[in-house]
């Protein structure tokens, strides 16, 4: 049953995953070429000075990718499930919702992490070819909150689509946007290094709360 459920999610997500994979690849090619161009037009010392002293992030544009993955996969996975109250059909599968929902949400998040993770590894590889591990570690610190932002947008999209009341959708979207801004407002690579676990905890709370709108859709809740 679980394999069938996973396969069902894969059928829904395969096209968006394919498109996002191509987009990620293009983004990595652009990152590599951009860095090569930067190294060609600027002296190496000037480039390193920018990265170390001014804490510039030439990879800043590429950090949007996890958020795009989260939003696209969240919408692609949950929009078909929530049209015309079809979420109840999902809940009529012969599987407890305590297993069903974590599997469905986990599948979506797994693909978000996989796509964004591979993209992040690609970025790390590109920068590790030219720079020492201190600068690459800075990239990883900059990437991690964006990864959480991707998971936040995935959960946000799922939550907004699943909610049964309009006012709750609007408020939920505002809260998710607020947290997304909190995760992406750092102007320095390691700005979140001291408290990333706290941001991770808040993201985890958003993942766990997804059970609530599902149960509201199943059992009927207040509007």
């Amino acid at each position, binding site marked *: 049953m679980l394999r069938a459920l996973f396969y069902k999610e894969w059928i829904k997500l395969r096209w968006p995953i394919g498109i996002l994979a191509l987009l990620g690849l293009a983004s990595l090619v652009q990152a590599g070429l951009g860095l090569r161009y930067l190294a060609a037009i600027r002296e190496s*010392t000037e480039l390193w000075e920018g990265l*170390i002293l001014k804490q510039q992030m030439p990879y800043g544009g590429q950090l949007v990718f996890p958020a795009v993955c989260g939003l696209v996969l969240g919408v692609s996975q949950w929009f078909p499930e929530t049209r015309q109250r079809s979420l109840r059909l999902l809940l009529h599968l012969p599987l407890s919702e305590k297993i069903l929902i974590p599997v469905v949400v986990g599948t979506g998040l797994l693909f978000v992490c996989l796509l964004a993770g591979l993209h992040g590894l690609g970025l790390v590889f590109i920068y590790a070819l030219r720079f020492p591990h201190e600068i690459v570690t*800075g990239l990883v610190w900059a990437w991690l909150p964006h990864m959480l932002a991707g998971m936040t947008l995935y959960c946000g999209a799922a939550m907004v689509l699943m909610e049964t009341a309009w006012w709750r959708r609007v408020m939920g979207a505002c809260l998710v946007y607020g947290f997304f801004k909190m995760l992406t407002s750092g102007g320095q690579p390691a700005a979140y290094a001291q408290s990333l676990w706290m941001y991770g905890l808040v993201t985890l709370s*958003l993942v766990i*709360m997804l059970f609530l709108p599902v149960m509201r859709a199943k059992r009927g809740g207040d509007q």
Partner: protein
Amino acid sequence: MTFFSRYAAVFFALVVLATFLPRFFWQAAEGQRNRLAIFYSSVSEGFLIHELDAYGQNFYRTEEGRELDQKDFVSLLPFRYARDLVRWGEMPETIQGVAVEPEKLPLSVQNVFFRPRSLDGPEIPLCFVMEAASGFVDLEMPGEVMRISGRQAEFIRTSDNRVLKEKSLLFTAAFERAGFHFPAQKAWARTSTRKPFDWGWFILDAEGSLFHLIQAKGQPQVRPVLKDFAPGIRYVQVEEHPGRHAYGLLVDWKGGVHRMNYPDYSLTPLPLKEFNPSEMRLTWRRDPLVHHYTVEGGDALSVTVTDHRDAVIREIRMDLPPLRSESARKAEAFFFPFRIMQGVPDSGYLTLRLSWNHDFLLARALGILAALGSFVLWRHWQGRSLKESPADWLVLGVCGFFGLFALLWAGHVPGQKPVERRAV
């Protein structure tokens, strides 16, 4: 599972609301005040005040309140406005018996600014160690960076990201000879080519001792500066000034600020009362006659003036009109029993720091009662029992209106039926 999920939703909403609502509140409610600066005039031996209002209009006056025009004000501060006075031919030849030589003023006038944000922040632990004795007038950024990790200092060439082994061994040996314990905890310098010369790096070793590293003609010079400094070293602000009066400022973990004197690295505690480096800004101005220390923080501005032997000459403290009115602070206490701050004054990191509101106990208590009352009304309107989800009352009691909004958004536990109302 639904129970955990509901409180996870409440927690998520609480974090976001407690971060943004107080921020929006103060963006709307915080007032404006005129910018104020206080200077000590060695000519009149009194304080002068410069005020700039919201419309860009300047006001100048003495500490007694006598209005001055701009030219009188400038004339009373000859070290600050030396170029203007020289152009007008009004530079005094002597002040307090000390001869004034305008061409030598750049060597004796120094301004140092300290901001709490400098104390801590994300950084990439690689150091550009400049050549301090190149023989050329202009400084240049070196083509390699140094890392001090593990048991050695390593130099990495920027052009090809390769470790320079000979140079690394040379510097590691110099560190070891000086008694440095690897790895470094922190390193401070003013890494810029826009300075008159280079004083290199001040480096805190693994045991909390401070060392000074300079590269001269490719050779390392490592000097032990401070050992067994009881309060512990929090921050060093290096200041390369052509007068070479001091290496800079040193902030310890007990909040003390010291001037690190040139050339013997001796520390002189600055005569600052109630100075908190984590929250307040400090400006140190040195001129040929006195030191001014200006502290800005909270709603006060204070200036201490000492002579060059660090004996206090004059002090002044001016309370500024508060940016946050009492009624706005009461409203804050009513609505927000706490807040979560992402940015804090003494760090460049983005944290999630919880800060409880300790003002106006009555307003806070009323706010929580109002939140509880609103929740009771809401439950009544929804036809829900007050006994449903008893932990909600705890959330409301601790979080007030944040808790109310979070609980409204999370809603009731799905599946629980409303209480049947009696027919009238």
